[in-house]
Protein backbone atom coordinates (compact mmCIF):
# COMPACT_ATOMS: atom_id res chain seq x y z
CA UNK A 1 0.00 0.00 0.00
CA UNK A 2 1.20 3.50 -0.90
CA UNK A 3 2.35 5.34 2.23
CA UNK A 4 2.61 9.10 2.90
CA UNK A 5 3.63 11.20 5.88
CA UNK A 6 2.14 14.54 6.91
CA UNK A 7 2.51 16.94 9.83
CA UNK A 8 -1.22 17.48 10.15
CA UNK A 9 -3.96 15.32 8.61
CA UNK A 10 -7.44 16.87 8.60
CA UNK A 11 -10.47 14.64 8.12
CA UNK A 12 -13.21 16.69 6.44
CA UNK A 13 -12.98 19.63 4.02
CA UNK A 14 -15.89 21.72 5.28
CA UNK A 15 -15.54 25.03 7.11
CA UNK A 16 -13.88 23.49 10.20
CA UNK A 17 -11.35 21.49 8.18
CA UNK A 18 -10.48 24.38 5.82
CA UNK A 19 -9.90 26.79 8.71
CA UNK A 20 -7.84 24.15 10.52
CA UNK A 21 -5.63 23.65 7.45
CA UNK A 22 -4.97 27.36 6.99
CA UNK A 23 -4.31 27.86 10.67
CA UNK A 24 -1.92 24.87 10.81
CA UNK A 25 0.04 26.44 7.94
CA UNK A 26 0.12 29.86 9.64
CA UNK A 27 1.53 28.18 12.74
CA UNK A 28 4.39 26.52 10.94
CA UNK A 29 3.18 23.13 9.69
CA UNK A 30 4.72 22.48 6.26
CA UNK A 31 2.90 19.32 5.15
CA UNK A 32 -0.83 19.40 5.67
CA UNK A 33 -3.44 17.11 4.14
CA UNK A 34 -7.19 17.67 3.94
CA UNK A 35 -9.22 14.52 3.17
CA UNK A 36 -12.71 15.19 1.75
CA UNK A 37 -15.26 12.57 0.69
CA UNK A 38 -17.26 14.87 -1.61
CA UNK A 39 -16.20 15.92 -5.12
CA UNK A 40 -15.24 19.40 -3.94
CA UNK A 41 -14.30 21.29 -0.78
CA UNK A 42 -16.73 23.40 1.23
CA UNK A 43 -18.89 20.76 2.89
CA UNK A 44 -22.54 21.51 3.57
CA UNK A 45 -21.97 25.23 2.85
CA UNK A 46 -22.18 24.39 -0.87
CA UNK A 47 -25.84 23.44 -0.57
CA UNK A 48 -26.76 26.31 1.80
CA UNK A 49 -27.34 28.82 -1.00
CA UNK A 50 -29.21 31.29 1.25
CA UNK A 51 -27.40 34.30 2.66
CA UNK A 52 -26.52 35.29 6.20
CA UNK A 53 -23.11 33.63 6.55
CA UNK A 54 -19.95 35.40 7.66
CA UNK A 55 -21.32 38.43 9.52
CA UNK A 56 -18.79 37.95 12.33
CA UNK A 57 -15.85 36.78 10.23
CA UNK A 58 -16.09 38.84 7.04
CA UNK A 59 -18.38 41.61 8.31
CA UNK A 60 -20.75 41.03 5.42
CA UNK A 61 -23.61 38.68 4.60
CA UNK A 62 -22.43 35.94 2.27
CA UNK A 63 -24.19 32.91 0.84
CA UNK A 64 -22.95 29.48 1.92
CA UNK A 65 -21.10 28.87 -1.39
CA UNK A 66 -19.68 32.42 -1.19
CA UNK A 67 -18.32 31.79 2.32
CA UNK A 68 -16.87 28.45 1.21
CA UNK A 69 -15.21 29.96 -1.86
CA UNK A 70 -13.27 32.49 0.24
CA UNK A 71 -11.74 29.65 2.26
CA UNK A 72 -11.25 27.34 -0.72
CA UNK A 73 -9.31 30.07 -2.56
CA UNK A 74 -7.03 30.57 0.45
CA UNK A 75 -6.44 26.81 0.75
CA UNK A 76 -5.72 26.41 -2.97
CA UNK A 77 -3.21 29.28 -2.84
CA UNK A 78 -1.38 27.69 0.08
CA UNK A 79 1.48 25.39 -1.07
CA UNK A 80 1.67 23.61 2.30
CA UNK A 81 -1.85 22.16 1.99
CA UNK A 82 -2.63 19.07 -0.11
CA UNK A 83 -6.23 18.07 -0.74
CA UNK A 84 -7.63 14.61 -1.50
CA UNK A 85 -11.15 14.78 -2.96
CA UNK A 86 -13.65 11.93 -3.48
CA UNK A 87 -11.74 10.15 -0.74
CA UNK A 88 -13.12 8.22 2.22
CA UNK A 89 -11.32 7.49 5.45
CA UNK A 90 -11.93 3.78 5.98
CA UNK A 91 -9.84 3.36 9.10
CA UNK A 92 -8.29 5.53 11.76
CA UNK A 93 -5.90 4.11 14.35
CA UNK A 94 -4.78 5.52 17.72
CA UNK A 95 -1.18 5.63 16.37
CA UNK A 96 -2.39 8.34 13.90
CA UNK A 97 -2.43 6.07 10.87
CA UNK A 98 -5.25 6.99 8.50
CA UNK A 99 -6.30 4.53 5.78
CA UNK A 100 -8.01 6.33 2.91
CA UNK A 101 -9.52 5.07 -0.33
CA UNK A 102 -10.51 6.63 -3.64
CA UNK A 103 -11.01 5.42 -7.21
CA UNK A 104 -7.77 6.96 -8.56
CA UNK A 105 -5.10 6.03 -6.01
CA UNK A 106 -6.85 3.03 -4.48
CA UNK A 107 -6.03 2.45 -0.85
CA UNK A 108 -3.36 4.62 0.80
CA UNK A 109 -1.81 4.71 4.23
CA UNK A 110 -1.34 8.24 5.62
CA UNK A 111 0.67 8.81 8.76
CA UNK A 112 0.11 12.10 10.57
CA UNK A 113 1.98 13.65 13.47
CA UNK A 114 -1.32 15.24 14.49
CA UNK A 115 -4.89 14.57 13.34
CA UNK A 116 -7.78 17.04 13.21
CA UNK A 117 -11.27 15.52 13.19
CA UNK A 118 -13.61 17.79 11.21
CA UNK A 119 -16.31 15.43 9.96
CA UNK A 120 -19.24 17.71 10.76
CA UNK A 121 -22.66 16.36 11.64
CA UNK A 122 -25.55 14.55 10.04
CA UNK A 123 -29.30 14.82 10.28
CA UNK A 124 -31.59 12.76 12.44
CA UNK A 125 -33.75 10.59 10.21
CA UNK A 126 -37.19 9.05 10.35
CA UNK A 127 -35.67 6.08 12.19
CA UNK A 128 -34.39 8.33 14.96
CA UNK A 129 -37.88 9.64 15.75
CA UNK A 130 -39.77 6.43 14.91
CA UNK A 131 -42.72 7.73 12.88
CA UNK A 132 -45.13 4.81 12.40
CA UNK A 133 -46.63 3.84 9.07
CA UNK A 134 -45.51 2.46 5.74
CA UNK A 135 -42.10 3.08 4.17
CA UNK A 136 -42.81 4.79 0.85
CA UNK A 137 -40.52 7.00 -1.26
CA UNK A 138 -40.76 10.75 -0.74
CA UNK A 139 -39.77 10.85 2.95
CA UNK A 140 -36.38 12.52 3.31
CA UNK A 141 -34.41 14.81 5.55
CA UNK A 142 -34.53 18.53 4.82
CA UNK A 143 -30.79 18.59 4.15
CA UNK A 144 -31.00 15.75 1.62
CA UNK A 145 -33.76 17.67 -0.16
CA UNK A 146 -31.62 20.81 0.02
CA UNK A 147 -28.80 19.08 -1.83
CA UNK A 148 -31.20 17.70 -4.48
CA UNK A 149 -32.92 21.05 -5.06
CA UNK A 150 -29.89 23.35 -4.85
CA UNK A 151 -27.11 21.28 -6.40
CA UNK A 152 -28.46 18.33 -8.32
CA UNK A 153 -31.55 19.77 -9.98
CA UNK A 154 -34.35 17.56 -8.67
CA UNK A 155 -37.54 18.53 -6.84
CA UNK A 156 -38.46 15.78 -4.36
CA UNK A 157 -42.18 16.62 -4.39
CA UNK A 158 -44.90 19.14 -5.28
CA UNK A 159 -47.20 18.92 -2.23
CA UNK A 160 -44.84 19.14 0.70
CA UNK A 161 -45.24 18.70 4.45
CA UNK A 162 -42.34 19.57 6.74
CA UNK A 163 -41.96 17.99 10.17
CA UNK A 164 -39.73 19.90 12.57
CA UNK A 165 -39.12 23.64 12.53
CA UNK A 166 -35.34 23.59 12.65
CA UNK A 167 -33.64 26.19 10.49
CA UNK A 168 -32.97 23.78 7.61
CA UNK A 169 -36.66 22.86 7.50
CA UNK A 170 -37.69 26.52 7.45
CA UNK A 171 -35.15 27.38 4.76
CA UNK A 172 -36.37 24.44 2.67
CA UNK A 173 -40.00 25.59 3.03
CA UNK A 174 -39.00 28.79 1.22
CA UNK A 175 -36.79 27.00 -1.32
CA UNK A 176 -39.50 24.52 -2.32
CA UNK A 177 -41.97 27.41 -2.64
CA UNK A 178 -39.61 29.46 -4.85
CA UNK A 179 -39.13 26.37 -7.03
CA UNK A 180 -42.88 26.11 -7.58
CA UNK A 181 -43.87 23.43 -5.06
CA UNK A 182 -46.66 23.96 -2.52
CA UNK A 183 -45.63 23.70 1.13
CA UNK A 184 -48.82 22.75 2.92
CA UNK A 185 -47.70 22.95 6.55
CA UNK A 186 -44.85 22.78 9.03
CA UNK A 187 -45.46 20.73 12.17
CA UNK A 188 -43.42 21.24 15.34
CA UNK A 189 -43.78 19.00 18.39
CA UNK A 190 -42.54 21.70 20.80
CA UNK A 191 -44.68 24.71 21.79
CA UNK A 192 -42.09 26.99 20.11
CA UNK A 193 -40.13 26.91 16.87
CA UNK A 194 -36.57 25.64 17.13
CA UNK A 195 -35.48 27.90 14.27
CA UNK A 196 -34.44 31.55 14.27
CA UNK A 197 -37.23 34.14 14.35
CA UNK A 198 -35.80 35.59 11.15
CA UNK A 199 -36.37 32.27 9.39
CA UNK A 200 -39.90 31.86 10.77
CA UNK A 201 -40.75 35.34 9.42
CA UNK A 202 -38.90 35.24 6.10
CA UNK A 203 -39.39 31.57 5.17
CA UNK A 204 -42.90 30.82 6.49
CA UNK A 205 -44.88 34.01 7.18
CA UNK A 206 -43.72 35.65 3.92
CA UNK A 207 -45.30 32.77 1.98
CA UNK A 208 -48.33 32.17 4.24
CA UNK A 209 -47.07 28.71 5.19
CA UNK A 210 -48.84 27.58 8.37
CA UNK A 211 -46.70 26.55 11.37
CA UNK A 212 -48.53 24.16 13.70
CA UNK A 213 -46.82 24.18 17.10
CA UNK A 214 -47.36 21.33 19.60
CA UNK A 215 -48.20 18.96 16.73
CA UNK A 216 -46.58 15.72 15.62
CA UNK A 217 -46.80 13.43 12.62
CA UNK A 218 -48.33 10.16 13.84
CA UNK A 219 -48.38 8.13 10.62
CA UNK A 220 -47.03 8.04 7.09
CA UNK A 221 -49.29 6.63 4.37
CA UNK A 222 -48.62 5.27 0.87
CA UNK A 223 -47.14 2.15 -0.67
CA UNK A 224 -44.80 3.10 -3.53
CA UNK A 225 -44.92 6.84 -2.91
CA UNK A 226 -46.07 8.77 0.14
CA UNK A 227 -49.73 9.77 -0.33
CA UNK A 228 -50.38 11.53 2.96
CA UNK A 229 -49.72 11.82 6.66
CA UNK A 230 -51.71 11.77 9.86
CA UNK A 231 -50.91 14.48 12.36
CA UNK A 232 -52.13 15.20 15.87
CA UNK A 233 -51.86 17.72 18.64
CA UNK A 234 -49.59 16.75 21.55
CA UNK A 235 -50.02 17.24 25.31
CA UNK A 236 -47.46 18.78 27.67
CA UNK A 237 -45.59 15.46 27.72
CA UNK A 238 -45.36 15.62 23.90
CA UNK A 239 -47.73 12.65 23.53
CA UNK A 240 -50.41 12.74 20.80
CA UNK A 241 -53.85 13.64 22.18
CA UNK A 242 -56.42 10.99 21.28
CA UNK A 243 -59.12 12.31 18.98
CA UNK A 244 -57.10 15.25 17.59
CA UNK A 245 -55.62 13.30 14.69
CA UNK A 246 -56.29 14.52 11.15
CA UNK A 247 -55.23 13.39 7.68
CA UNK A 248 -53.40 15.50 5.09
CA UNK A 249 -52.63 14.60 1.45
CA UNK A 250 -49.00 15.12 0.37
CA UNK A 251 -46.40 13.63 -1.96
CA UNK A 252 -43.34 14.56 0.10
CA UNK A 253 -42.42 14.72 3.79
CA UNK A 254 -39.27 16.58 4.81
CA UNK A 255 -37.79 16.03 8.27
CA UNK A 256 -35.94 18.75 10.14
CA UNK A 257 -35.64 17.13 13.54
CA UNK A 258 -32.12 17.81 14.68
CA UNK A 259 -28.47 17.18 13.94
CA UNK A 260 -26.01 14.71 15.45
CA UNK A 261 -22.19 15.10 15.35
CA UNK A 262 -20.75 12.42 13.06
CA UNK A 263 -18.33 10.50 15.26
CA UNK A 264 -17.98 6.94 13.96
CA UNK A 265 -14.23 7.46 13.55
CA UNK A 266 -13.90 9.12 16.96
CA UNK A 267 -15.55 6.11 18.59
CA UNK A 268 -13.34 3.69 16.63
CA UNK A 269 -10.27 5.11 18.33
CA UNK A 270 -11.98 5.19 21.72
CA UNK A 271 -12.16 8.93 22.30
CA UNK A 272 -13.91 10.04 25.48
CA UNK A 273 -17.32 11.40 24.37
CA UNK A 274 -19.68 13.98 25.89
CA UNK A 275 -23.19 12.46 25.95
CA UNK A 276 -24.79 15.94 25.94
CA UNK A 277 -23.05 17.37 22.86
CA UNK A 278 -22.64 14.01 21.10
CA UNK A 279 -19.04 14.96 20.32
CA UNK A 280 -15.63 14.20 21.77
CA UNK A 281 -14.55 15.81 25.03
CA UNK A 282 -11.96 18.50 24.18
CA UNK A 283 -9.84 21.03 26.02
CA UNK A 284 -9.45 24.69 25.04
CA UNK A 285 -6.87 23.70 22.42
CA UNK A 286 -9.49 21.33 20.96
CA UNK A 287 -7.32 18.35 21.82
CA UNK A 288 -9.38 15.23 22.57
CA UNK A 289 -8.75 12.61 25.24
CA UNK A 290 -6.16 10.98 22.95
CA UNK A 291 -2.99 13.08 22.62
CA UNK A 292 -2.36 14.25 19.05
CA UNK A 293 -6.03 14.01 18.06
CA UNK A 294 -7.84 17.34 17.79
CA UNK A 295 -11.47 18.07 16.82
CA UNK A 296 -13.36 21.14 15.61
CA UNK A 297 -16.72 22.29 14.31
CA UNK A 298 -19.99 20.36 14.23
CA UNK A 299 -18.21 17.10 15.03
CA UNK A 300 -17.59 18.54 18.52
CA UNK A 301 -20.99 20.21 19.03
CA UNK A 302 -23.61 21.44 16.60
CA UNK A 303 -23.12 25.15 15.93
CA UNK A 304 -25.63 27.68 14.63
CA UNK A 305 -23.07 30.04 13.05
CA UNK A 306 -20.38 28.96 10.59
CA UNK A 307 -18.21 31.81 11.87
CA UNK A 308 -17.74 29.93 15.15
CA UNK A 309 -17.04 26.70 13.25
CA UNK A 310 -14.18 28.45 11.43
CA UNK A 311 -12.92 29.89 14.70
CA UNK A 312 -12.86 26.45 16.30
CA UNK A 313 -11.08 25.02 13.24
CA UNK A 314 -8.39 27.67 13.65
CA UNK A 315 -7.84 26.74 17.27
CA UNK A 316 -7.53 23.03 16.46
CA UNK A 317 -5.23 23.67 13.47
CA UNK A 318 -3.01 25.95 15.55
CA UNK A 319 -2.38 23.46 18.34
CA UNK A 320 -2.17 20.48 15.96
CA UNK A 321 0.62 22.33 14.10
CA UNK A 322 2.51 23.05 17.31
CA UNK A 323 2.32 19.44 18.40
CA UNK A 324 3.37 18.23 14.94
CA UNK A 325 6.47 20.41 15.11
CA UNK A 326 7.53 18.62 18.25
CA UNK A 327 6.64 21.31 20.72
CA UNK A 328 6.68 19.69 24.13
CA UNK A 329 3.63 20.44 26.21
CA UNK A 330 4.40 22.16 29.49
CA UNK A 331 3.32 20.50 32.68
CA UNK A 332 -0.31 21.30 33.19
CA UNK A 333 -3.28 20.72 35.47
CA UNK A 334 -6.49 19.61 33.78
CA UNK A 335 -9.81 20.83 35.20
CA UNK A 336 -13.36 19.94 34.15
CA UNK A 337 -15.85 22.52 32.93
CA UNK A 338 -19.25 21.64 34.38
CA UNK A 339 -22.59 22.99 33.10
CA UNK A 340 -24.52 24.19 36.16
CA UNK A 341 -27.98 25.70 36.71
CA UNK A 342 -29.69 26.62 33.43
CA UNK A 343 -26.76 25.60 31.21
CA UNK A 344 -27.08 22.54 28.98
CA UNK A 345 -23.69 22.17 27.33
CA UNK A 346 -20.28 23.83 27.47
CA UNK A 347 -17.35 23.36 25.10
CA UNK A 348 -14.49 22.87 25.89
CA UNK A 349 -15.26 20.32 28.59
CA UNK A 350 -11.69 20.52 29.94
CA UNK A 351 -9.39 23.44 30.68
CA UNK A 352 -5.66 22.92 30.74
CA UNK A 353 -3.92 25.28 33.17
CA UNK A 354 -0.22 25.52 32.43
CA UNK A 355 2.48 25.90 35.04
CA UNK A 356 3.88 28.90 33.15
CA UNK A 357 2.13 31.52 31.05
CA UNK A 358 -1.53 31.02 30.12
CA UNK A 359 -3.34 31.57 26.88
CA UNK A 360 -6.96 32.65 26.74
CA UNK A 361 -9.91 30.27 26.44
CA UNK A 362 -13.36 30.75 25.00
CA UNK A 363 -16.35 28.92 26.43
CA UNK A 364 -19.15 28.11 23.97
CA UNK A 365 -22.35 27.27 25.78
CA UNK A 366 -26.05 26.65 25.34
CA UNK A 367 -28.74 27.38 27.91
CA UNK A 368 -31.57 24.94 28.69
CA UNK A 369 -34.47 27.31 28.00
CA UNK A 370 -35.27 30.81 26.77
CA UNK A 371 -34.86 33.41 29.50
CA UNK A 372 -34.65 37.18 29.61
CA UNK A 373 -32.20 39.31 31.60
CA UNK A 374 -29.84 36.66 32.88
CA UNK A 375 -26.35 36.77 34.36
CA UNK A 376 -23.99 33.96 33.42
CA UNK A 377 -21.33 33.17 35.93
CA UNK A 378 -18.09 31.19 35.68
CA UNK A 379 -16.64 30.10 39.01
CA UNK A 380 -14.04 27.77 40.42
CA UNK A 381 -13.59 26.66 44.03
CA UNK A 382 -16.38 29.01 45.13
CA UNK A 383 -14.66 32.04 43.62
CA UNK A 384 -16.26 33.90 40.70
CA UNK A 385 -13.95 34.22 37.69
CA UNK A 386 -16.31 36.02 35.35
CA UNK A 387 -19.86 37.32 35.20
CA UNK A 388 -21.68 38.56 32.14
CA UNK A 389 -25.22 39.83 31.64
CA UNK A 390 -27.40 39.04 28.63
CA UNK A 391 -30.73 40.67 27.70
CA UNK A 392 -31.93 37.30 26.39
CA UNK A 393 -30.57 33.75 26.15
CA UNK A 394 -32.07 31.09 23.87
CA UNK A 395 -31.14 27.41 23.54
CA UNK A 396 -30.85 27.82 19.76
CA UNK A 397 -28.25 30.60 19.98
CA UNK A 398 -24.81 29.69 21.25
CA UNK A 399 -23.27 32.05 23.81
CA UNK A 400 -19.54 32.74 23.93
CA UNK A 401 -17.66 33.73 27.10
CA UNK A 402 -14.02 34.85 26.99
CA UNK A 403 -11.72 33.62 29.72
CA UNK A 404 -8.48 35.59 29.85
CA UNK A 405 -5.13 34.38 31.18
CA UNK A 406 -5.83 36.13 34.49
CA UNK A 407 -9.05 34.10 34.86
CA UNK A 408 -7.22 30.83 34.14
CA UNK A 409 -4.66 31.62 36.83
CA UNK A 410 -7.45 31.64 39.42
CA UNK A 411 -8.74 28.17 38.59
CA UNK A 412 -8.38 25.81 41.58
CA UNK A 413 -10.90 23.08 40.80
CA UNK A 414 -13.89 22.28 38.57
CA UNK A 415 -15.09 25.28 36.57
CA UNK A 416 -18.85 25.78 37.03
CA UNK A 417 -20.75 27.66 34.34
CA UNK A 418 -24.28 28.60 35.40
CA UNK A 419 -27.06 31.14 35.30
CA UNK A 420 -27.10 33.10 38.56
CA UNK A 421 -30.33 32.63 40.47
Amino acid at each position, binding site marked *: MNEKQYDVVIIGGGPAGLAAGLSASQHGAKHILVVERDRELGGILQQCIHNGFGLHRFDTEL*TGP*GYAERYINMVKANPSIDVLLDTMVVDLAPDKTVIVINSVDGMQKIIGKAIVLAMGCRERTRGAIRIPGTRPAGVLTAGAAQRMV*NMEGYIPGQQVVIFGSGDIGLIMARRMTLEGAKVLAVFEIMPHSSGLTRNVVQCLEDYDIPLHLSHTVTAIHGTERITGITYAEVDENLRPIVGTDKYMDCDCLLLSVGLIPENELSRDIGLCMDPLTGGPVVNQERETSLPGFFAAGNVVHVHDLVDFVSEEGEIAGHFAARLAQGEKSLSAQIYSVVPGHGVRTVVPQKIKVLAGEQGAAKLYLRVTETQRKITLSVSSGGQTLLEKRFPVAKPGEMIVLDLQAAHLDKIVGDIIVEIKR
Partner: protein
Amino acid sequence: MEQEKRAVRCIVCPLSCLGEVTIEKGEVVAIKNMTCRRGEDYAREEIVAPKRMLTTTVRITGGELPLLPVVSDRVLPKDKVMACARYLADIVVRAPIKEGDVVCADILGLGVNIVASRSLAAANPR
Protein backbone atom coordinates in the same frame (compact mmCIF):
# COMPACT_ATOMS: atom_id res chain seq x y z
CA MET B 1 -61.07 57.53 11.72
CA GLU B 2 -60.12 54.27 9.91
CA GLN B 3 -57.31 52.68 11.90
CA GLU B 4 -55.67 49.32 11.30
CA LYS B 5 -53.35 47.59 13.77
CA ARG B 6 -50.80 45.05 12.57
CA ALA B 7 -48.38 42.86 14.51
CA VAL B 8 -44.75 42.86 13.35
CA ARG B 9 -42.26 40.43 14.82
CA CYS B 10 -38.82 42.02 14.87
CA ILE B 11 -35.87 40.07 13.46
CA VAL B 12 -33.11 42.60 14.22
CA CYS B 13 -31.85 40.91 17.41
CA PRO B 14 -32.61 37.77 19.48
CA LEU B 15 -35.10 39.65 21.69
CA SER B 16 -37.67 39.12 18.87
CA CYS B 17 -40.04 41.88 20.06
CA LEU B 18 -43.63 41.64 18.87
CA GLY B 19 -44.45 45.20 17.86
CA GLU B 20 -47.87 46.65 17.17
CA VAL B 21 -48.06 49.08 14.30
CA THR B 22 -51.02 51.40 13.87
CA ILE B 23 -51.78 52.38 10.29
CA GLU B 24 -54.10 55.21 9.27
CA LYS B 25 -54.80 55.99 5.59
CA GLY B 26 -51.82 53.86 4.55
CA GLU B 27 -49.44 55.66 6.87
CA VAL B 28 -47.75 54.44 10.04
CA VAL B 29 -48.99 56.63 12.89
CA ALA B 30 -47.77 54.65 15.93
CA ILE B 31 -45.46 51.77 16.84
CA LYS B 32 -45.78 50.09 20.24
CA ASN B 33 -43.94 47.33 22.14
CA MET B 34 -40.56 47.57 20.41
CA THR B 35 -37.59 47.74 22.81
CA CYS B 36 -35.37 49.90 20.63
CA ARG B 37 -35.27 52.34 17.76
CA ARG B 38 -33.91 49.74 15.34
CA GLY B 39 -37.02 47.64 15.96
CA GLU B 40 -39.27 50.62 15.24
CA ASP B 41 -37.40 51.33 12.00
CA TYR B 42 -37.70 47.69 11.00
CA ALA B 43 -41.44 47.63 11.75
CA ARG B 44 -42.02 50.81 9.73
CA GLU B 45 -40.18 49.41 6.72
CA GLU B 46 -41.99 46.06 7.01
CA ILE B 47 -45.31 47.90 6.73
CA VAL B 48 -44.40 50.57 4.16
CA ALA B 49 -42.00 48.80 1.80
CA PRO B 50 -40.83 45.34 2.92
CA LYS B 51 -37.69 44.13 1.15
CA ARG B 52 -35.86 40.80 0.93
CA MET B 53 -32.71 39.32 -0.53
CA LEU B 54 -33.35 36.61 -3.13
CA THR B 55 -31.28 33.45 -3.30
CA THR B 56 -32.13 30.74 -5.82
CA THR B 57 -30.50 28.73 -8.61
CA VAL B 58 -30.31 28.93 -12.40
CA ARG B 59 -29.52 26.16 -14.85
CA ILE B 60 -25.96 25.94 -16.11
CA THR B 61 -24.71 23.92 -19.07
CA GLY B 62 -21.24 22.47 -19.55
CA GLY B 63 -20.46 22.79 -15.85
CA GLU B 64 -19.41 20.40 -13.12
CA LEU B 65 -22.90 20.73 -11.66
CA PRO B 66 -26.30 21.24 -13.36
CA LEU B 67 -27.21 24.25 -11.17
CA LEU B 68 -25.57 27.54 -10.28
CA PRO B 69 -26.57 29.25 -7.01
CA VAL B 70 -27.33 32.96 -7.43
CA VAL B 71 -28.06 35.90 -5.14
CA SER B 72 -29.48 39.39 -5.60
CA ASP B 73 -26.79 42.08 -5.21
CA ARG B 74 -29.14 43.97 -2.89
CA VAL B 75 -32.62 43.67 -1.40
CA LEU B 76 -35.64 43.81 -3.67
CA PRO B 77 -39.34 44.45 -2.93
CA LYS B 78 -40.83 41.50 -1.07
CA ASP B 79 -43.82 41.26 -3.41
CA LYS B 80 -41.47 40.81 -6.40
CA VAL B 81 -39.46 37.91 -4.92
CA MET B 82 -41.70 35.19 -6.34
CA ALA B 83 -41.87 36.79 -9.79
CA CYS B 84 -38.06 37.08 -9.87
CA ALA B 85 -37.64 33.45 -8.81
CA ARG B 86 -40.01 32.26 -11.57
CA TYR B 87 -38.22 34.47 -14.11
CA LEU B 88 -34.85 33.01 -13.12
CA ALA B 89 -36.24 29.47 -13.48
CA ASP B 90 -36.04 29.95 -17.26
CA ILE B 91 -32.50 31.35 -17.38
CA VAL B 92 -29.66 29.13 -18.57
CA VAL B 93 -26.00 30.13 -18.34
CA ARG B 94 -22.86 28.46 -19.62
CA ALA B 95 -19.84 27.32 -17.58
CA PRO B 96 -17.26 28.49 -16.65
CA ILE B 97 -18.71 31.09 -14.29
CA LYS B 98 -16.91 33.18 -11.69
CA GLU B 99 -18.39 34.23 -8.35
CA GLY B 100 -19.96 37.67 -8.77
CA ASP B 101 -20.61 37.31 -12.53
CA VAL B 102 -23.90 38.99 -13.42
CA VAL B 103 -26.36 36.29 -14.44
CA CYS B 104 -29.31 38.62 -14.94
CA ALA B 105 -28.93 42.42 -15.02
CA ASP B 106 -31.71 44.71 -13.77
CA ILE B 107 -34.13 41.85 -13.17
CA LEU B 108 -37.74 42.79 -14.07
CA GLY B 109 -36.59 46.41 -14.26
CA LEU B 110 -36.11 46.58 -10.48
CA GLY B 111 -32.57 47.96 -10.68
CA VAL B 112 -31.22 44.81 -8.98
CA ASN B 113 -28.67 42.45 -10.50
CA ILE B 114 -28.64 38.71 -9.93
CA VAL B 115 -25.08 37.42 -9.54
CA ALA B 116 -23.41 34.02 -9.23
CA SER B 117 -22.76 33.13 -5.59
CA ARG B 118 -19.95 30.71 -6.48
CA SER B 119 -17.54 29.93 -9.28
CA LEU B 120 -18.28 26.86 -11.36
CA ALA B 121 -15.66 25.35 -13.66
CA ALA B 122 -16.40 23.77 -17.02
CA ALA B 123 -16.75 19.99 -16.76
CA ASN B 124 -13.77 17.96 -17.96
CA PRO B 125 -14.67 16.24 -21.24
CA ARG B 126 -14.53 12.50 -20.65
